[in-house]
């Protein structure tokens, strides 16, 4: 958004009596997502090098659990102090991020050393650590990372407890709530914005990078305590489908579209069909939720993430073992045909320029 566009927005708000006076300057320099990504990648690289340094100079850090925990905690505290002491310094920000990542790795190594055979407890412990860091470290990128990590560790803990299938539904529900109600709770934006992006990354990660996470965590998977029961698996996909329907209902309400109107019936019908398909294709509903919310809140980045999640769903579905390729092909072709029919219905029921259904 250019300065001129920002002024124009302010002028529109002023004309509507929503703001007064001159537009304020930007609170801090803004960076698009790809600059944040570059910062995050560099932070990771630096953290690995710092770990190499720490491991070489102080081998006890990696050999003794208590030493690793202590060293990791000290690094995280140092990082938090660095962020708070120099909130506007790019160098301090990057250094703090790298030191914190190295500290987190040490804490994980320490917990692994002490609790190695209890994956669920280890994951729950790390989720707690990341939640504390989310609160203590006042930097956007670090909070996004902390939120995503805490949720990923929580997913592992759920997996260990036999509740893994519930995670996509729980995550997509929390994601939708944070993004849809963010505007009503703007004073908590410092927390809600990074939490929203962390949740988005957590929801999207399974279809996008699920195979990678699976490969990375495979060595630990034999430690998982309980396999999910059929009831939990069924409850998980029903929850994901229910979240999708709830999101559509909420958006219809926000847009003032009556449920009995043709657009209302069409939207709800499409949500129910996609929700039903989710019973066989578990990643479908969460990907659609990200796409819908992204468009609803006017975020191109989030919409793009939703499209990426859908593409990843299509490619990952090939490898899902719950159904044969023939069953999957029939499901996809049938669902695709229904959606194309729905497309025709939309064109008929909701003509261009028509306002039918709006209260």
């Amino acid at each position, binding site marked *: 958004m250019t300065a001129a566009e920002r002024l124009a927005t302010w002028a529109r708000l002023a004309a509507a009596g929503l703001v007064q006076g001159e537009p304020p300057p930007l609170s801090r320099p803004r960076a698009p997502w790809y600059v944040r990504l570059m910062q995050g*990648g560099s932070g990771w690289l630096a953290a690995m*090098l710092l770990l190499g340094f720490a491991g070489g100079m102080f081998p006890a850090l990696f050999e003794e659990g208590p030493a690793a925990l202590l060293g990791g905690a000290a690094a995280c505290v140092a990082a938090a102090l660095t962020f708070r002491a120099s909130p506007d310094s790019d160098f301090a920000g990057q250094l703090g991020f790298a030191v914190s990542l190295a500290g987190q790795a040490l804490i994980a190594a320490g917990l692994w050393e002490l609790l190695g055979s209890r994956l669920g407890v280890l994951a729950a412990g790390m989720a707690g650590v990341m939640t504390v860091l989310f609160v203590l470290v006042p930097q956007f990128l670090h909070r996004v990372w902390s939120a995503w990590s805490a949720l990923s560790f929580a997913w592992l803990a759920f997996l260990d407890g036999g509740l893994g299938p519930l995670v996509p539904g729980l995550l997509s529900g929390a994601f939708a709530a944070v993004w849809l109600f963010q505007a009503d709770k703007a004073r908590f934006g410092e927390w809600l914005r990074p939490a929203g992006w962390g949740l988005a990354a957590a929801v999207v990660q399974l279809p996008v990078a699920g195979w990678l996470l699976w490969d990375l965590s495979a060595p630990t998977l034999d430690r998982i305590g309980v396999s999910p029961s059929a009831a939990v698996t069924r409850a998980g996909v029903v929850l994901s489908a229910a979240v999708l329907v709830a999101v559509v209902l909420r958006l219809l309400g926000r847009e003032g579209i009556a449920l009995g109107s043709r657009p209302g019936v069409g939207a709800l019908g499409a949500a129910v069909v996609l929700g039903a398909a989710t019973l066989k294709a578990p990643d479908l509903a969460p990907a659609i939720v990200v796409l819908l919310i992204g468009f609803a809140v006017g975020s191109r980045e989030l919409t793009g993430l939703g499209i990426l999640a859908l593409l990843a769903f299509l490619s990952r579905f090939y490898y899902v073992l719950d159904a044969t390729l023939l069953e999957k092909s029939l499901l996809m072709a049938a669902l695709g*045909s229904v959606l194309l029919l729905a497309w025709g219905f939309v064109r008929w029921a909701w003509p261009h320029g028509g306002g039918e259904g709006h209260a």
Partner: protein
Amino acid sequence: MSVRRDILDWSERGYIAPNDVQTALRVGGALPEAADWRGFVEQLLLWLGMALVASGVGFFVAYNWQDLGRFEKLALVQGLVVAALAVVGWKGLDRPAGRAALFGAALLVGALLALVGQIYQTGADTFELFAAWGLAVLPWALVARFAPLWVLWLLIANLAIVLYYTTFGGLLGVLFGPERLLWVLFAFNTAALVLWESLAAAGIRWLSGRWAPRLLALASGGLATALAVWSLLDWRATSGWGMPLWLVWLGVAYLVYRRWRRDLFVLAGGVSSVVIVAATFLLEHMGLDDYGGFLVVALAVVGLSAVGTRWLQAVAAEMDQ
């Protein structure tokens, strides 16, 4: 930056009353209107429906169902290609339905070629399937004037190149080594990028979107970075041209995307590339082979990325004016 982000920022700082934020988002144009929703729902249903049908056919071919005869299978896939082309003829290439149908037909041609190979056991290498697929859909890409179809074509061509060199890598490893593959991919994607940017600059409107050239720039820059890192790590086993190529790529990318067609995405990619190559250089060639060296390189990475962030923010602020 988005309107939404600005309005939420103003609200966080107390310039907008908490109860007025939703109204402000609506008035400021941050939320979609009814017409936007209609367009979005229509596009979502059309493209997701097409992608699901085409993927379903692909899965069906992969299943290799023995209960269905080869003629029925061929008739099914060919029938769908013909049906998709009939929709193209009916709707035309300027309307979303026609474009989606042509995109679907292009995907189905891949499934059809795979099916032919599966039924008749042609003995063709996998790269030949992709090469034939690319050749078959090239005329459609030429007439469609539709960027996503060109991106699909470029993806197919890249896969054909990778599979070609993978196939012959073992047999003629000296001639077709992995470095050669990276050079060929770099040359192909860079040529495509130059062509795309040139035609867009010449005023071809359907090429004016930035996502496709950014993808190509990412591929081109990523490959240049990989070649540079490889030559730094194992210069005896490589041609030695990786570093000079990377330096030239970096200079040209700076001139093009800082001076001619300002694009922060590519510049951010360039900064990432500098950080990676500099870290590799320091680790390999500065004698930093003790543990203290790791600390020096870590600080260098932090410093470079911090300077890069500051520079990118300055460019972003300049572009905002």
